[in-house]
């Protein structure tokens, strides 16, 4: 019998456990990358696994076709949809065991770290620095440094950013005006006050005035990370050698949102994209989502919803300076042959050129990773004011941990989040969360020590 859909997540847990064991038994082997300047990528055919569907997939396939047609080395990239991020990870981890890996694939930083630990991908520094195939100093300086840093492990570039998105607060400006505000919330107190007033005074154009809320909280580690960043905290130490999940900032973030839940002006999200749906019909004042959802929000509000003025803003920050959670999957190059690896890098290099970046932004609504792409996007920014608002926040980006076990920790964070919102003791829950999260790091250290 086949695998029922509902068991996939459980399956992934089991799979990670099995492969975790496999990684423990066989120490990672980081073979030396040959001198890439001497490698000839001509005529290589490579496979690229991605997670995009529909319009994004169509746009990406067009770009791939252009690359195949125009690159001077006759490299052929074959783009293949490999399921969502979890499916891609699953496929790659299993593929590493069976020796059936693609040449290029999308990966979140923590996933890339797991591949790297299993010697399944190659570091990209030799390619970036190559005199023949690499990026010039000016090109490198053109990338947002934070994005490149996000993709490094101990100073090694294990993946490369093709795009980024960030968590932004979607605000119903017309409703805020009805409540007497002419701006999105600037402080947490103001955010709380707006939520309370939204509960008391439904939006005049709401589709259902009997339901009026300030905010719908998605039980998700990235949402929690954004709240913690806004309260001046972080999830890990600056050196990323320990989790910092039992901190006054984490306590403040969860207590704050817990209080609003108890007051009834914030509720836990019960259905996937329910916040997007309720926001579009004027039942929820704010929604916290990825900026990549901008076209979905716009379409929901104006082609199905009730139509109103809206914008995006950063979450309030206790420091006064916005801190936005910037994330996004990157590209990794699988360990195959020097020729294929180089061909994969050349595709990455082409894809991150400013003109291709501008093209990809138009297709995907992701943010570009290079500053110079903005020049080619002037008209797009003018036509998409919400995208422009979010784009301006890029310099305030802060990222979540890029540790191999972070996927596991995310689940722990979500469990703790639900527990605390449902009345568990916050001190005990956070102390346990901290202990469990750090134990995943200890496992990683043990594996690394054995490998050495």
């Amino acid at each position, binding site marked *: *019998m*086949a*695998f*029922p*859909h509902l*068991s*996939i997540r*459980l*399956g*992934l847990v*089991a*799979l990670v456990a*099995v*492969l975790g064991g496999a990684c423990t038994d066989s120490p990672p082997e980081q073979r030396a990358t040959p001198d890439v300047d001497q490698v000839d990528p001509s005529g290589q055919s490579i*496979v690229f696994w991605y*997670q995009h*569907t*529909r319009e*994004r997939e169509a746009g990406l396939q067009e770009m791939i076709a252009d690359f195949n047609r125009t690159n001077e080395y006759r490299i052929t990239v074959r783009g*293949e*949809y*490999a*399921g*969502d*991020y979890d*499916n891609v990870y*699953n*496929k790659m981890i*299993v593929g590493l*065991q*069976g*020796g*059936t890996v693609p040449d290029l694939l999308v990966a979140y930083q923590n996933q890339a770290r797991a591949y790297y630990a299993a010697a399944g991908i190659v570091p990209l520094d030799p390619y970036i620095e190559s005199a023949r195939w690499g990026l010039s100093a000016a090109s490198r300086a053109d990338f947002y440094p934070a994005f490149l840093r996000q993709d490094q492990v101990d100073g090694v570039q294990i993946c490369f950013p093709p795009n980024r998105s960030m968590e932004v607060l979607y605000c119903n400006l017309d409703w805020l005006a009805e409540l007497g505000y002419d701006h999105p919330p600037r402080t947490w107190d103001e955010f709380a006050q707006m939520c309370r007033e939204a509960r008391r005074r439904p939006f005049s154009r709401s*589709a*259902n005035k009997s339901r009026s809320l300030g905010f719908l909280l998605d039980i998700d580690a990235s949402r929690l990370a954004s709240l913690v960043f806004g309260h001046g905290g972080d999830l890990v130490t600056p050196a990323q050698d320990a989790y910092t999940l039992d901190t006054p900032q984490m306590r403040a973030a969860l207590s704050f949102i817990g209080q609003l839940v108890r007051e009834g002006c914030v509720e836990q999200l019960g259905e*996937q*994209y329910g916040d*997007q*749906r309720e926001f*579009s*019909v004027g039942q929820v004042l704010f929604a916290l*989502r*990825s900026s*990549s*959802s901008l*076209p*979905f*929000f716009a*379409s*929901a509000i104006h*082609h*199905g*919803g009730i139509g109103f003025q809206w914008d995006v803003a950063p979450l309030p920050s206790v420091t006064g300076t916005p801190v936005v959670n910037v994330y996004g999957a990157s590209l990794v190059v699988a360990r195959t042959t020097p020729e294929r690896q180089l061909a994969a890098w050349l595709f990455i290099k082409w894809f991150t050129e400013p003109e291709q970046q501008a093209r990809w932004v138009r297709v995907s609504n992701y943010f570009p990773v290079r500053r110079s792409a903005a020049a080619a996007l002037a008209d797009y920014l003018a036509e998409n004011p919400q995208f422009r608002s979010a784009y301006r926040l890029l310099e305030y980006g802060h990222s979540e941990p890029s540790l191999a076990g972070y996927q596991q920790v995310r689940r722990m964070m979500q469990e703790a989040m639900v527990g605390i919102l449902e009345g568990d003791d916050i001190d005990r829950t956070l102390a346990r969360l901290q202990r469990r999260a750090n134990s995943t790091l200890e496992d990683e250290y043990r594996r690394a020590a054995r490998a050495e």
Partner: protein
Amino acid sequence: MLLASFMTRGETLRRALWPQRLQWGNYADAWREADFGLYFKNSLIIAGLQVGGTLLFSVLAAYPLARMRFRGRELVFGCILATLMIPESVTMVPNFLTITWLHRSTPFAWLNSWPALTVPFMVSAFSIFLLRQFMRSQPSELWDAARIDGAGHVRFLFQILLPLCRAPLLTVGMFTFIGSWNALAWPLLVTNTPDWRPISVGLQQFVSEAGAEIHLQMAGACIATMPVLVAYFLIQREFTEGISASGLKG
């Protein structure tokens, strides 16, 4: 799900109870946008092969466990039952490694082909158990009479016993069909192109990382569910009978 599949996007967003006008176009859009034609055909082939294979191997395994006496029979049956306790997701890696090995070691292409999608699931402990229980419940006089008429085990199985097993066979077929129809993780693992992928992959196209179009998603879900519903309606009497006869009823 059915009502939402006929709504406009606005109606799904507003949580309307009933569509103002039936949006038949949602079905056409869903069919076109997710290339359901191809996925539908693939799913039918995969389910057909899997049902056929499961029935064949389950019958051949259940019969000796039910009707033949040999040393270690109960132990073999116990081992088969014990495999029911292994989560299927745990078998994913070994199955994949086996398929990869076969792909490399035999002249046949296993990856990106029907065998990879069907062969690992053609043996089902649950199906063997279900059929064995039913076969055991048949009177031994049948076998005695068949022996007197000169029939051996093969003839007895295919000419006498199997026609009596219609209900459990249809039940096994139905369970296998549903499992195969809903499969997503395994097909994604062993295939790389839409040419081999089932309808669940098509359905996944409507849920992106950034948002969902519920009306199209529901239309797609209705399309994907329809064959299972039709199959169930056609065999519901035998299905219930099969479950009852195997002693699985609550």
